[in-house]
């Protein structure tokens, strides 16, 4: 049984392998980038706005609101990073309605890459807000004894981010695959609908957790 889309190989030459994950990821990126370009080509600030612009604005203001609620002072600074994470994960799981599609987030390499982005972005944002010394000092809060535990938590939460998204997406594909062999008529559709819900929740959770980590790293102590 194909656990992930890594095992679908389209093209192989030397040590370069073009598997399903890479192809679907790039297709998704193309669709999202071109779609965003097309929608933002004719933006209107007054008068009637197009439906696409309206829906895009709803998404953007919704994400901004959520980032602000988590406790990040200026949501605009973090919107590009967190919004991209959310939109990518969400559209990847939304596309499971397309037959024959396997979500690229159901592969551990994609989710590990996304988690590594968060792992690198958190110190970068922290250093930008508090300076290098100020950021490094947060590791010794509340006392110096907590230093190793803070470092371990930094690593383990990255692992948790990657494995959580991978497990949820992979289990969705897996359950549908198993159900197709047992009860091929109605139940796979029900489980796919459930998979849509899980995918949305996971996209939300992934970006909210990233926002929480960034908020923890950028908190400047107010005297």
């Amino acid at each position: 049984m194909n656990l992930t889309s890594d095992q679908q190989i389209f093209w192989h030459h030397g040590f370069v392998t073009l598997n399903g994950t890479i192809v679907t990821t790039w297709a998704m990126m193309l669709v999202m980038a071109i779609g965003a370009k097309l929608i933002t080509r004719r933006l209107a600030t007054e008068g009637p706005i197009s439906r696409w612009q309206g829906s895009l604005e709803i998404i953007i203001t919704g994400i901004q609101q959520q980032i602000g609620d988590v406790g990040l002072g200026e949501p605009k600074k973090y919107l590009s990073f967190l919004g991209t994470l959310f939109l990518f994960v969400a559209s990847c799981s939304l596309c499971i309605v397309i037959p024959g599609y396997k979500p690229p987030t159901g592969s551990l390499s994609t989710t590990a890459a996304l988690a590594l982005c968060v792992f690198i972005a958190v110190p970068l944002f922290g250093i930008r807000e508090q300076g290098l010394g100020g950021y490094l000092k947060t590791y010794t809060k509340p006392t110096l004894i907590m230093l190793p535990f803070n470092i371990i938590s930094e690593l383990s939460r990255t692992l948790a981010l990657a494995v959580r998204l991978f497990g949820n997406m992979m289990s969705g594909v897996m359950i549908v695959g198993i159900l197709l062999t047992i009860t091929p008529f109605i139940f796979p559709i029900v489980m796919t609908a459930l998979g849509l819900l899980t995918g949305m929740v996971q996209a939300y959770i992934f970006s909210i957790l990233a926002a929480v980590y960034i908020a923890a790293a950028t908190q400047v102590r107010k005297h």
Partner: protein
Amino acid sequence: MDNSILVAVVSIATAGLTIGIGCMCPALGEGKSVATALTSLAQQPDASATITRTLFVGLAMIESLAIYCFVVSMILIFANPFWTHTIAQSGGK
């Protein structure tokens, strides 16, 4: 008993145990947290946004434990390194 059968039996039994116990305990934790969140939602409907967000983040944290167990059991069944090792050895003989 043959060596490969032993590996297969232990892998399958462990996979079942892993997913069984690993679902049971996080389910208890999730039930507890949802019940508490519902209680506080009923007491303070105004704080619903904060409560719901914290609940979701907490549920994701708890659920990741169950997901770890699921991943481990899937590895044991479909991508077992010991099983491939045993097969490779018996094939080499």
